[in-house]
């Protein structure tokens, strides 16, 4: 029970909350809640009219249930009734319920608005405040339409109580933010500005927020607020710490109001009126001076409040960017914070200095702190602080310190957190390009990047180095020499192979004179990496080879041999095969002249914005772009690189990668209880012991699988090795599948591991992996009894045509399974062509002398051979149109069988095997996927689209594939998953 129960105790509510807290499991909680919901429903429906108190109590319970995360679909009417109660607490609960559970039910909104209207007109300040809070909490357009005109009147009325004015100001702010068009400007606006002079500090605090927001939209109408704000600020800043009584917070006078006033001033340029400006500068200086004074209290609240004002002051100084003296003082102050023992202050100082770095007045002052910042990058224990340090280094970089900063960032990259590596890579790449004095340094830096963090070097980065090398002939020889050396490392990153392949293909001739890098050496070096590379890289290398034939006629025979090899000419990958065939033919039929023309050196790339900069902007969001792209300081540096121009507007479209930054690493919550850090304020707070859920232990499924060793990944080549003859009894002598077989199979359409079957005797677990048209499945048979199974024989049966569609090879297992023991069976699977029915698994054994037999459907469905395919919206729609024959499309509209959760849906679609394509469907609620089904005989391209309709609890699923039965079959399989 609560230590304190203030005001009323709604005892029934307390009992209910206790009950919920005592529930040992989620199921028990749901049961208790359902019981309560039934009870409340019957009370609401009952003949006996409920008194206000009961109604309040039940509404409060419903609210509690909703806040636990359950859906509430009734009780709104009772809550609305409470609104018109003249008992304060009933009204209060009614408003709370409405605020939390708004419903766009128009009938209800009308009633709610009516109640609010009555309360606003009641002249009872407490009722008026409740009504205003409700409007501010809901803030919907309907409410705006009903009240936006009334609230300004209440706000400026001479007879409104202070508390009502405060609520009215912030209520109006909320409505204005939601629908600015509904709030009429007028005579009241002038009077709002004068609230800055109000005697009541609370009224000023609330009003400043409203005025700040209005200023941003109509700066000219509110200009008079500047002088009022300055004089208010000046009075606060110069007041003694006790003058403001309850508005003084830990010896700091009115910190919230001060911060808000400083924010308001940031809506405008420096005041034009000299007197006002002088007074303001005085204020800013006072704040900076106070920072140097000894603290009046050791409490962190004191220093936080004081520094909050200081940081806001610095923001204003940076915003004005016109007072060199103040800027440098601000910078020095932040410099002190860089070494402060409070992590929070170090973080904020780094962040704030980033903006100072872009001011011409303080750029040099910021640069003096370079060593401290580099040190922070190396030693800070908190990744978010390190990230700020990296940002600041990036912002303070110019030609004078570029080499130092780039080399420090490269060094940091070796140990950097995975979450920020890609961003650091981009920044290094940009700085290296922007401040390159000689291009050999640039080439070295980028190759170092690839060496240190190859996985995080995105395409943009290595494309860019190729562009620059192609465009500058002074660096081509050096680049060729450097990549050649880099490629000699025994293990080099695939991105290095790409860059190396491209550069040698273009400029390998520049180093061919040296016998250590003669054409055959270059070729064999590249070709030694060929087999380890992905398809895309191999395709690139094939192009390099044909370029070699042109550059170095002496390599022609060797290269033709490579192209002619079966592994190229008959490669399963269409692209590789096509390149091999075409290049081979080209090299045999074309004359040297033709070859030389076709394979001429690439022309220079058109200069445009660095694609890397564009990518960094995308990652940071459009807002951050301007601060990164500070062309201000070194317009001159752009010309040698010819690249860095303001972003075209297309850059601001959020790309999928923009989201990636949002997905900061979120490891599971640390379980280790840290010592309670409460100060003297809350010493008796005790930890919430009973609320901890008893650990239920692993579910049977997990426990089962956790005993298994995961199969080591193997190359597809090895998958079919060591086949055992399948003892394949004809379909006629096995029993039909058990009734649940279909249901069990459905469980595995979107996942590969789990418990396939379980009864009192036997548990069958599955673990499987599929690659292209091959698969390997591990079946685990667990004897749950204490008695040995005899004649244990699991076999796989191919009904109907399946034999020609799917090859499954099984290994025999021991005929005896001891009580409590588990045996494992390995199945090698090859998909020969598309198939519709799954193979059957027949398990027979004798248990205690009695024959047992069981037939299941083996969880091998056609989608297991899906290979996800990424493609852009344009490509998707092009292919979608190509598959427009009526039979190629299958569509199903069906009711949701599970709660409609976007995350779960995503996981299922990915589990199904297709790639999920973002930004294809104009409706973000919809899901679009693509993939290729790999079979030995043919490939089937598949496109899918899933449209959830949450309101109707329905889905529409559409599949288009190049093969009619596949569309239908996939559609049926997938439709059962939601």
């Amino acid at each position, binding site marked *: 029970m609560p230590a304190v129960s203030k005001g009323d105790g709604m005892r029934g509510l307390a009992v209910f909350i206790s009950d919920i807290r005592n529930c040992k499991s989620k199921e028990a909680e749901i049961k208790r809640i359902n019981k309560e919901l039934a009870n409340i429903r019957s009370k609401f429906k009952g003949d006996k009219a409920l008194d206000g108190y009961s109604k309040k109590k039940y509404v409060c319970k419903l609210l509690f249930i909703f806040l636990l995360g359950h859906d509430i679909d009734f009780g709104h009417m009772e809550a609305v009734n409470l609104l018109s109660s003249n*008992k304060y607490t009933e009204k209060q609960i009614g408003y709370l319920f409405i605020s939390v559970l708004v419903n766009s039910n128009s009938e209800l909104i009308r009633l709610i608005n009516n109640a609010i209207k009555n309360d606003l007109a009641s002249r009872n300040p407490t009722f008026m405040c409740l009504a205003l809070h409700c409007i501010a909490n809901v803030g919907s357009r309907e409410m705006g339409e009903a009240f936006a005109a009334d609230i300004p009147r209440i706000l400026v009325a001479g007879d409104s109580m202070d508390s009502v004015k405060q609520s009215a100001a912030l209520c109006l702010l*909320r409505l204005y933010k939601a629908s600015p068009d509904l709030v009429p400007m007028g005579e009241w606006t002038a009077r709002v500005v004068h609230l800055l002079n109000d005697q009541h500090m609370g009224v000023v605090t609330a009003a400043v927020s409203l005025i700040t927001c209005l200023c941003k939209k109509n700066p000219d109408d509110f200009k008079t607020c500047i002088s009022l704000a300055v004089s208010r600020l000046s009075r606060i800043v110069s007041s003694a710490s006790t003058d403001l009584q309850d508005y003084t917070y830990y010896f700091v006078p009115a910190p919230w109001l001060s911060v808000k006033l400083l924010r308001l001033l940031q809506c405008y340029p420096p005041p034009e009126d000299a007197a006002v400006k002088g007074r303001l500068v005085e204020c800013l200086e006072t704040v900076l001076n106070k920072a140097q004074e000894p603290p009046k209290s050791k409490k962190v609240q004191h220093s936080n409040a004081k520094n909050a004002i200081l940081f806001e002051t610095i923001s204003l100084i940076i915003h004005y960017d016109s007072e060199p003296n103040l800027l440098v003082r601000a910078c020095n102050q932040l410099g002190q914070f860089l070494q402060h023992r409070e992590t929070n202050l170090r973080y904020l100082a780094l962040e704030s200095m980033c903006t100072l770095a872009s001011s011409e007045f303080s750029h040099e002052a910021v640069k003096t702190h370079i060593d401290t910042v580099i040190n922070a990058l190396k030693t800070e224990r908190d990744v978010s602080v390190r990230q700020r340090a990296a940002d600041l280094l990036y912002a303070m970089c110019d030609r004078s310190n570029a080499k130092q900063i780039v080399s420090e960032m490269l060094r940091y990259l070796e140990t950097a957190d995975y979450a920020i590596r890609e961003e650091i890579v981009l920044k290094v790449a940009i700085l290296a390009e922007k401040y390159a004095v000689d291009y050999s340094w640039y080439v070295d830096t980028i190759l170092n990047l690839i060496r240190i963090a190859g996985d995080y070097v995105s395409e943009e980065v290595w494309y860019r180095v190729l562009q620059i090398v192609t465009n500058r002939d002074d660096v081509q020889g050096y680049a060729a020499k450097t990549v050649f050396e880099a490629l000699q490392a025994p293990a080099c990153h695939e991105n290095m192979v790409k860059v190396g392949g491209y550069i040698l293909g273009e400029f390998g001739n520049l180093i061919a004179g040296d016998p250590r890098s003669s054409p055959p050496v270059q070729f064999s070096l590249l070709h030694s990496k060929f087999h380890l590379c992905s398809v895309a890289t191999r395709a690139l290398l094939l192009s390099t080879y044909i370029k070699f034939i042109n550059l170095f006629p002496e390599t022609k025979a060797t290269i033709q041999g490579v192209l002619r090899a079966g592994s190229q000419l008959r490669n399963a990958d269409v692209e590789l095969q096509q390149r091999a065939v075409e290049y081979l033919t080209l090299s045999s039929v074309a004359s040297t002249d033709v070859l030389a023309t076709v394979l001429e050196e690439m022309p220079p790339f058109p200069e445009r914005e660095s694609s890397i900069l564009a990518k960094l902007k995308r990652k940071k969001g459009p807002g951050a772009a301007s601060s990164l792209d500070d062309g201000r300081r070194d317009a001159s540096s752009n010309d040698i690189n010819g690249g860095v121009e303001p972003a075209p507007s297309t850059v601001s479209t959020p790309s999928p990668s923009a989201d990636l930054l949002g997905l900061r690493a979120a490891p599971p919550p640390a379980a280790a209880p840290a010592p309670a850090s409460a100060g003297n304020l809350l010493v008796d707070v005790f*930890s919430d012991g009973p609320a901890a859920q008893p650990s239920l232990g692993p579910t049977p499924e997990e426990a089962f699988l956790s005993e298994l060793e995961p199969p080591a990944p193997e190359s597809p080549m090895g998958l079919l090795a060591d086949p055992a003859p399948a003892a394949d009894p004809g379909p006629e002598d096995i029993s039909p599948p058990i009734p649940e077989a279909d249901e069990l199979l459905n469980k595995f359409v979107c996942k590969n591991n789990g418990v396939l079957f379980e009864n009192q005797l036997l548990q069958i677990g599955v673990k499987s992996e599929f690659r292209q048209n091959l698969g390997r499945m591990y079946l685990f048979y667990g004897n749950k009894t204490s008695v040995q199974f005899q004649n244990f024989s699991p076999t796989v049966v191919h009904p109907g045509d399946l034999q020609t569609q799917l090859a499954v090879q099984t290994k025999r297992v021991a005929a005896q399974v001891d009580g409590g023991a588990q045996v494992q069976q390995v199945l090698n699977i090859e998909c020969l062509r598309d198939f519709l029915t799954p193979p059957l698994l027949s398990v027979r054994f004798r248990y205690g002398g009695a024959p047992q037999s069981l037939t299941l459907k083996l969880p091998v469905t056609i989608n297991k051979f899906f290979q996800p395919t990424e493609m852009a919206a344009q490509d998707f729609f092009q292919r979608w149109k190509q598959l427009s024959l009526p039979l190629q499309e299958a569509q199903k509209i069906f009711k949701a069988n599970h709660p409609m959760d976007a995350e779960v849906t995503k996981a299922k679609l990915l589990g199904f095997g297709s790639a999920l394509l973002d930004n294809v469907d104009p409706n973000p609620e919809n899901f679009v996927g693509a993939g290729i089904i790999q079979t030995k005989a043919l490939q089937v391209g598949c496109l899918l689209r899933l449209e959830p309709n949450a309101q109707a609890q329905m889905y529409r699923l559409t599949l288009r594939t190049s093969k009619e039965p596949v569309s239908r079959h996939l559609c049926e399989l997938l439709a059962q998953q939601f």
Partner: protein
Amino acid sequence: MLLFSRQGKLRLQKWYVPLSDKEKKKITRELVQTVLARKPKMCSFLEWRDLKIVYKRYASLYFCCAIEDQDNELITLEIIHRYVELLDKYFGSVCELDIIFNFEKAYFILDEFLLGGEVQETSKKNVLKAIEQADLLQESQNEEWGGLSEDIL
């Protein structure tokens, strides 16, 4: 603003921008995970999507606010602290259980302090005056009901 326990149980949620229930649940899950994963000595601020998160732990409870890019982190930290002080003064040495059993009061106090996401009244006295007035009204009403004996369900 979110309040949640060390075990990740949500104790109070206040949203100042319109979002669907689904989004709210998703954001809550994400934030709770992110914040709980942080170590005690780390800084109280972090970037999250295009917002900044300011959080502080008081005994078993985490208080967590999402603010916009331009907003002041330190003053937000003190908003959290002032709210804790208000709860503490009202309940008299507040603990997590007070907030669980009197969740409606925690919401009422918050509404008096913050409205529409902005600070409305920073004076402790003025905020609590409003709430205590309401309690007085309530107690006199309870007497009219002559005890609470039939009030079990």
